[in-house]
């Protein structure tokens, strides 16, 4: 005993003994492991975000052809007398473009055919404009015209002259027209408001597809989740944590709550289908059903977080309140719950964020992407009308054949991530505020 305690003192303090050197190496090694793990995680995160942003950014912009087109009054009057009026406008526009980009080198009819594939039938739009604004005749008017998805893909480099197969959508001659328009500076990039605020579109029209309606669907669903799951979860947690006796029954409930948190979300989806739609006859594909299903899924998450927050409140606070003659309910609501509030809030927002990103149960109750075709008329129909949600919309786009939807899916993911990020920021801000108050 005496030998053992004295032996380190005998060696020099500046020279490591074998044991210390080994211990220090082990410590360095362990730190290196940790650092490596963090570096790997950060690298993957950076790769993930770069991929998402690079693939998704094009979804927020669209390519437009902007041309200052002038229609003279005689041209207008002549066109209005024709039998096929929009065709005449098409030809007039094509002629104008042909002059502008090729000094007459290209044939007007060929340009008109190409423009129809690149821009769609623009004659109708032009005619409508001049009939509504006759004052614009004889002066240049800036027309902003959307391009077809194939033309956009060519401009983005996804289609090249070598890979192009002539089809009714795009031909080699069209590429010449596009190149010349590009050289003339007619092709511009604009913010794609359709993507941000629009509804889902048909499988052959990725350019017209938007996530706006699905965002609204997600919003109404989150409202349902919050209103249903928060009060139930907090009440259940308070009862279990503060009032319930410790016996086999409460133990059973506790085990089941933990198990429920681990149940795959698709099981909740099938439950929702059976109970809310087939039994209760709530409207199919509606945010209220989606919200109820996700609320069930979120309950255990919030309950677990709330119970942890309640447990973290020191028992001395309860003793203090009870010792003053407060009833148990008063002690809980006046002292314990306010102290647990930041924890409950964080748990709730984590639960909501989880619910916001959930796809599988929504597909089972019919909230697939293609039902998000129009905005709800009002508050009630927001809950009951068929709608989709952001992740389901993204899933639908990702499974479509047209490559234009691929970038829409990535863009949708960016929007979803922005929402999740802002929810987390709100959680942090609220938490800080609550903590300062106490």
């Amino acid at each position: 005993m005496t030998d053992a305690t004295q032996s380190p003192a005998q060696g020099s303090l500046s020279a490591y003994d074998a044991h210390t050197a080994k211990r220090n190496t082990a410590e360095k090694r362990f730190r290196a492991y940790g650092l490596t793990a963090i570096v790997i995680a950060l690298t993957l995160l950076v790769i993930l975000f770069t991929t998402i942003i690079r693939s998704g950014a094009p979804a927020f912009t669209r390519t437009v052809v902007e041309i200052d087109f002038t229609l003279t009054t005689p041209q207008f009057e002549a066109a209005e007398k024709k039998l096929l009026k929009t065709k005449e406008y098409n030809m007039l526009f094509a002629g104008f473009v042909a002059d502008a980009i090729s000094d007459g080198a290209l044939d007007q009819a060929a340009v008109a055919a190409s423009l129809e594939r690149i821009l769609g039938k623009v004659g109708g739009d032009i005619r409508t404009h001049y009939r509504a604004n006759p004052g614009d005749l004889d002066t240049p008017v800036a027309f902003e015209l959307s391009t077809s998805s194939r033309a956009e893909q060519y401009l983005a480099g996804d289609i090249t002259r070598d890979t192009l197969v002539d089809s009714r959508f795009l031909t080699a001659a069209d590429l010449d027209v596009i190149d010349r328009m590009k050289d003339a500076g007619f092709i511009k990039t604009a913010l794609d408001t359709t993507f941000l605020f629009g509804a889902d579109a048909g499988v052959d029209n990725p350019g017209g597809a938007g996530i706006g309606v699905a965002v609204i669907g997600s919003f109404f669903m989150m409202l349902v989740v919050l209103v249903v799951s928060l009060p139930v979860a907090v009440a259940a947690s308070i009862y279990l944590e503060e009032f319930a006796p410790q016996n086999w029954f409460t133990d059973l409930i506790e085990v089941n709550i933990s198990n429920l948190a681990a149940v795959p979300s698709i099981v909740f989806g099938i439950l929702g289908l059976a109970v809310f739609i087939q039994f209760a006859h709530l409207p199919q594909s509606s945010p209220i059903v989606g919200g109820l299903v996700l609320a069930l899924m979120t309950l255990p998450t919030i309950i677990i977080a709330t119970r942890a927050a309640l447990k973290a409140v020191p028992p001395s606070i309860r003793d203090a309140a009870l010792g003053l003659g407060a009833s148990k309910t008063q002690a809980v609501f006046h002292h314990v719950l306010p102290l647990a509030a930041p924890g409950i809030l964080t748990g709730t927002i984590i639960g909501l964020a989880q619910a916001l990103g959930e796809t599988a149960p929504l597909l089972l109750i019919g909230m697939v992407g293609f039902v998000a075709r129009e905005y709800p008329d009002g508050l009630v129909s927001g809950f009951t009308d068929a709608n989709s949600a952001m992740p389901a919309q993204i899933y639908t786009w990702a499974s479509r054949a047209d490559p234009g939807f691929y970038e829409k899916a990535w863009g949708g993911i960016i929007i979803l991530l922005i929402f999740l990020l802002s929810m987390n920021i709100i959680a942090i801000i609220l938490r800080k505020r609550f903590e300062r108050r106490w």
Partner: protein
Amino acid sequence: MLDNTIYNERLDTMNDVKISARGVNVFYADTHAIKDVDVDIKDKMVTSFIGPSGCGKSTFLRCLNRMNDTIDICRVTGDIRMDGQDINAKEVDPVQLRAKVGMVFQKPNPFPKSIYDNVSYGPRIHGMARTKAEMDEIVEKSLRRGALWDEVKDRLHAPGTGLSGGQQQRLCIARAVATEPQVLLMDEPCSALDPIATAQIEELIEELRQNFSVVIVTHSMQQAARVSQRTAFFHLGNLVEYGETGQIFTNPTDSRTESYITGRIG
């Protein structure tokens, strides 16, 4: 088990007894924590409970305001009467009892609220003040009784948790006396405090004695000797000896008391 001195004490002092406990047993699940204890707490006096750790003095203290009710596995039997009324009777609401029997805990536990809110909480939940002015008066009176008023009168709305340890404990005492209790239970109120803060609390206890009966659990025998008029010595769940403080410390009748006081056991 019951020795004669205790019975004699009881007979002598029946007239000014505030709380009388007879045959109190406490069980934590299968552990027998308090064994057949008889104690009389006299009115307007300081009674101290001393004894080694785990001897049951805090447990017994918590019987007096039924704080043990909050522990699921704890079972209390026996007869505890306050002013002749059985406090464990079915019709007695522990919440009401605790307003009459205040408690100060070992570790200062102010609510994480303002000083004012800490003191006014008890009176508020018991509906003791109808107006803000009345409440202000109660708060000031309680803080004066807690010997804290002069130090905090300018920052009543500062958080109670921002005070020093000794001030926090005095705040807890002020909070406890705000509900106008008849008995004040103190569970090692100075064990987390430095000697100066301890001296302040002890001085305060002496003043509180004018209005309340005070029961104090302490590990410090010097403190028991300084502040209390009567002392009970607990050992392994038994009440070994109970009597005048002076007599317990100078002339104990039981050999265990003597061993503890002289530092041979404990």
